């Protein structure tokens, strides 16, 4: 059951009314990946009725003139962050789009990946072209519960207690080792390494004395970081009608070097992108896109489908946390 975008649609509808009344305020809808903003655009599209033109930004790479050819007064551009690549020469199309937006008398309604938006706003100052910014908020546990249970009767579902032992609860100490050389022999000395993520998970679990349903949605909100798209995906995994199994576990923390973290930041800021595009960004800095993508897939952070590499929804929160820690997203 997708999120209801009533408030956001009303705000955008008002901007369309203002535009018809002669006041233009371009709109930027900013959200984390997987949020489900296309649902919002569908509602806006219905509200706009005739006189609007909708296009995916990816298609403007091949045919930018399609914007100029259109006579529609309201232009809806989906995933506008796809108009740039983080490389030298990778901002030309975005510059062209921004010039078009600022010199046009049309109303632009655009959607953006929040990580790309922050980056582009610092680099190109794109925020000044979109006076009306609709930032899709994180949902709390109650909102997620209402969203996911809206299609069920009260008491229809049974929430089961947390199942941890069978699924292998993350251990506090992981086994690691270091090598020493003694009499030209290499000796491997085992040593324990604390996993702070699992310590935090255990501490939070011990404090949780709530009823199973409340505990489930509390944990779902935390693990999904309040993202309805991610919450919906995890919900589908947990739902075994008419039972809901509490199989949610805090993911382990990410340990990547800077090169692989940079590759991950590029994927995060796009949601998904072609390996060829990833390669264009990474090759000049001496990183193989194929190798980085394969490693990130092995770590369970992305998946590769043909020539497209995409972020895993369930890895969104820990990816963003890791990249903030190493200051690759700000």
């Amino acid at each position, binding site marked *: 059951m997708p999120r209801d975008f009533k408030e956001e649609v009303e705000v955008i509808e008002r901007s369309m009314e203002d535009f018809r009344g002669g006041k233009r305020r371009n709109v930027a809808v900013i959200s984390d990946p997987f949020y489900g903003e296309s649902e919002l655009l569908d509602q806006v599209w219905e509200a706009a009725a005739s006189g609007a033109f909708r296009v995916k930004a990816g298609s403007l790479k091949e045919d930018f003139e399609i914007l100029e050819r259109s006579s529609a007064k309201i232009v809806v551009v989906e995933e506008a962050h796809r108009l740039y690549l983080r490389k*030298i*020469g*990778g901002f030309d199309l975005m510059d062209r789009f921004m010039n078009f937006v600022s010199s046009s008398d049309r109303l632009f309604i655009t959607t953006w990946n929040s990580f790309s938006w922050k980056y582009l706003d610092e*680099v190109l100052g794109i925020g000044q072209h979109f006076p009306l910014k609709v930032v899709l908020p994180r949902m709390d546990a109650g909102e997620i519960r209402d969203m996911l249970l809206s299609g069920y009767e009260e008491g229809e579902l049974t929430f089961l207690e947390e199942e941890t032992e069978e699924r292998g609860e993350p251990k506090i100490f992981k086994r690691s080792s270091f090598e020493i050389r003694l009499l030209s022999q290499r000796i491997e000395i085992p040593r324990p390494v604390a996993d*702070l993520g699992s310590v935090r998970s255990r501490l939070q679990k011990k404090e949780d004395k709530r009823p199973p349903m409340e505990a489930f949605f509390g944990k779902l909100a935390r693990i999904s970081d309040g993202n309805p798209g991610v919450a919906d995906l995890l919900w589908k995994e947990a739902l075994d009608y008419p039972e809901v199994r509490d199989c949610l576990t805090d993911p382990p923390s990410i340990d990547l070097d800077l090169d692989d973290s940079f590759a991950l930041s590029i994927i995060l800021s796009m949601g998904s992108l072609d390996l060829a595009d990833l390669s264009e960004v990474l090759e*000049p*800095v001496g990183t193989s896109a194929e190798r980085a993508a394969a490693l990130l897939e092995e770590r369970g952070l992305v998946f590769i489908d043909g020539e497209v590499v995409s972020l895993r929804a369930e890895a969104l929160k820990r990816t963003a946390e890791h990249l903030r820690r190493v200051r690759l997203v*700000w």
Partner: protein
Amino acid sequence: MAENATAPPSGPGGPIPDIGIDPSTIISALLLLTIAYVVVRVVVFLLGWLSERAYEHRITVKMAIPFAKLAIYGFAVYHILSSVVQLSATQLIVFSGLAGAAIGFGLKDLVAEVVGGVVIVLDKPYQVGDKVRIDDQYGEVTDIGLRATRLVTPDDNLVSVSNQMVINQTVANANAGSLEMQVVIDLFIDSSSDAAEAMKILREAAVTSKYVYISNKRPVTILMRDHPFYSMVRARVYVNDIRYEFKFETDVTKRAWEAFKREGIEPPMAGVVDLGGGRAADGG
């Protein structure tokens, strides 16, 4: 103290007075100092370990190290003077006299260094983790000791700078407690090349680097200065972690020059670039 009262008066050339500090007191004091030393080593190790796992809060955690050292050693000295030695008025006078003589004749510099260390900890002209230039030495501060400050230079040399020297010197701190710091990257191109295109490329090379940090307070600035036979384009841009300063400079320079070559932007002819004036002379 009764023993002291019956002791024969001492004068110039007389026997050394018994000041009532027996060997066990000295051993206790030494033991306490040893324990303080071990505790300091453990605390410094733990804070250092923790700081490296704190990522963006690394320098904040490291700031606690000199305070912890000062507190532990200060407590140890206080405890020795107040509980172990328990100086009487006579002992205090004798001790002060000896200490004064020691400081005056031999330990003057050592005391000045320790006082300098305390001043640095309290005044904070820099902190552990900062990139500083002291005298001719430039590097990351790895330790603020009681006697000296230790820096690791870009060549991985460990340099100890006396704390006494630090408080009498001009200290340049590149990041002042922040994880990011400004890096200045200069590229020189031939006068006939397209300087505007070079500025655009340099800007894009900087903002697309994996080492860059940009915010309202940390903007990217690109400057250009024309000279008779060459032009200089300069990027003032922030690196996201002071440890990547030189990698950042290399990354931006390498990718910018690759793009310059693609766009036909040439370097100046040999011998025309005057680097004698340094960066200050170039302005910007």
